[in-house]
């Protein structure tokens, strides 16, 4: 039985990888590939956020700090080195991840001393400090923003390049989230979620465990921030450090299922695609927020565990009922 389950799971993983790989080739028009790119970027951010917040129960609303820092790292370094557009700019993506991870350490040392709502408020406060810095530092050119190099690629396959870089980051991020979940370290995070003081009393070094998870979740977020900056060609403080980013990735994880592996992926797929569709069709930028708000209410009220865990608990029950009925008829 477990053999068929793991076989089915391996099949699902392969199918997902296949879809991820061929999507921009099959649907190659620029609008669709742009949506695809943004979906993948948010899949990374939501998965990374969930690997920390979903397991530890610390609802961080400051991950835009890492996204923005990654975006600015790429823009600033590319400018200082007078880089011209091309593949070489992508080499700055890992650097952006490292910078985001390093920023997470002092950020975490301050914020992770607090818990629950205090923690949430502290992360928001630190987020605004970073946005304010981006607005006021000379290195970021304040509110006039920064240009990133423009690649001289032809329109055909232009978006695909960004897409595949983001997709590669996604594969690594999901692998990281999976590894964390099944490691001792992941179990310690779950123990912290349930009773942090008790976990300490059983030898879990809670401070370190939380900080490492926080920094680990910052790295991929910074990397996709860099991809985002390079793709857009220019960045501004209010978009690189966007409070909506914080809420969006949290909502994606909540929607799909906090602490699950597939939940944030599903959440990002549904919500980001929805947002892009709304923006395209109604050409009103903020309309999707109303839908987000309504959706959030529905999820919290009707599916407090998120879509994936709810389905997972429904499926065996339905299957059992079906086999029962089949048995009764036979």
């Amino acid at each position, binding site marked *: 039985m477990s053999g068929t389950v793991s076989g089915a799971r391996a099949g699902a993983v392969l199918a997902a990888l296949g879809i991820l790989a061929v999507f921009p080739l099959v649907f190659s028009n620029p609008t669709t590939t742009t949506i695809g790119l943004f979906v993948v970027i948010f899949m990374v951010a939501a998965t990374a956020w969930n690997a920390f917040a979903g397991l530890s129960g610390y609802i961080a609303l400051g991950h835009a700090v890492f996204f923005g820092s990654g975006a600015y790292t790429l823009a600033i370094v590319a400018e200082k080195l007078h880089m011209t557009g091309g593949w070489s700019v992508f080499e700055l993506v890992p650097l952006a991840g490292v910078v985001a991870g390093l920023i997470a350490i002092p950020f975490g040392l301050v914020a992770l001393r607090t818990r629950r709502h205090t923690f949430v408020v502290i992360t928001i406060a630190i987020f605004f400090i970073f946005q304010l810095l981006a607005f006021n530092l000379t290195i970021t050119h304040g509110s006039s923003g920064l240009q990133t190099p423009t690649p001289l690629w032809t329109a055909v396959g232009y978006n695909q390049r960004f897409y595949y870089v983001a997709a590669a980051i996604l594969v690594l991020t999901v692998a990281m989230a999976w590894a*964390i979940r*099944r*490691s*001792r*370290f*992941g*179990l*310690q995070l*779950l*123990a912290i*979620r*349930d*009773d942090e*003081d*008790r*976990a*300490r*009393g*059983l*030898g*879990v*070094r*809670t401070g*370190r*465990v939380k900080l*490492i998870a926080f920094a680990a979740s910052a790295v991929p977020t910074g990397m996709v921030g860099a991809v985002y900056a390079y793709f857009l060609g220019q960045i501004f403080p209010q978009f690189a450090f966007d409070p909506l980013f914080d809420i969006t990735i949290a909502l994606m994880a909540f929607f799909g299922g906090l602490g699950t592996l597939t939940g944030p992926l599903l959440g990002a797929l549904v919500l980001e695609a929805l947002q892009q569709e709304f923006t395209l069709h109604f050409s009103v930028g903020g309309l999707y927020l109303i839908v987000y708000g309504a959706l959030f209410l529905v999820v919290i009220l009707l599916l407090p565990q998120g879509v994936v865990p709810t389905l997972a608990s429904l499926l065996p029950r339905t299957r059992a009922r079906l086999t029962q009925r089949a048995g009764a008829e036979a």
Partner: protein
Amino acid sequence: MTPLLEVEGLTKSFGGLRALDGATLAVAEGEIAGLIGPNGSGKTTLFNVVTGYERADAGDVRLRGRSISSAGPDRIFALGIGRTFQLTRIFARLSVLENMLVATQRHEGWARSVFRAAGSPAERKQALELLEFVGIAKLASLPAGNLSYGQRKLLELAYVLVADPDVILLDEPAGGVNPSLLHHIADRIRAVNAAGKTLLIVEHDMEFVMYLCGRIMVLHQGRVLTTGTPEQVQRDPAVLDAYLGGAEDEDDELDVAAVQL
């Protein structure tokens, strides 16, 4: 020979309330010591200070002669003092077996924990053996939140044992447990002691304490009032005074066990 665990002159105040007022006691290797006292006498505060959850205002805690009064709970657990809580504290959303595995890294650095699976086959086997030992192995895959109160007490005992501590502090192991399970818990505590562990038990159920402990210390208003065998303590008029709020009682035959607390 120095005692395994020593508490010397421990003082701890919460605002104007002096919870511990120069408490001094010692626990010898291999014994089951009891710590009793009226409500508010400082028993749980003493446990909290010894296990690093609270910092004492003055005084010292020593394990094998070494001061541990500045260490946090994770460090103290790693040094070999395990404890259970009065109101059991388990990880409700983890399975019973996962609860056990949380505690298995007493001797392991964090870096290793990142790169290995949640439980090696050997650790899982050991965890299941301990669950078997306390008698809840059948429930291993259940979410711990589904356990009854008594079963939670057993789980707490089992996962403290996982890390093989030298001293175990039990905070009211019998509190709120139904009588049939009570015998089982007492029996398991005896077995733990027979396996070489030292125990210090805080308990309100006098029968339970008298049955288990070879030596009993009575805490009153933050300091140790008297120490002795169960018989000595039972006969000590000062103990009765402490429990009855200092009221002079003429009945010499009154025994502490009869006072329903």
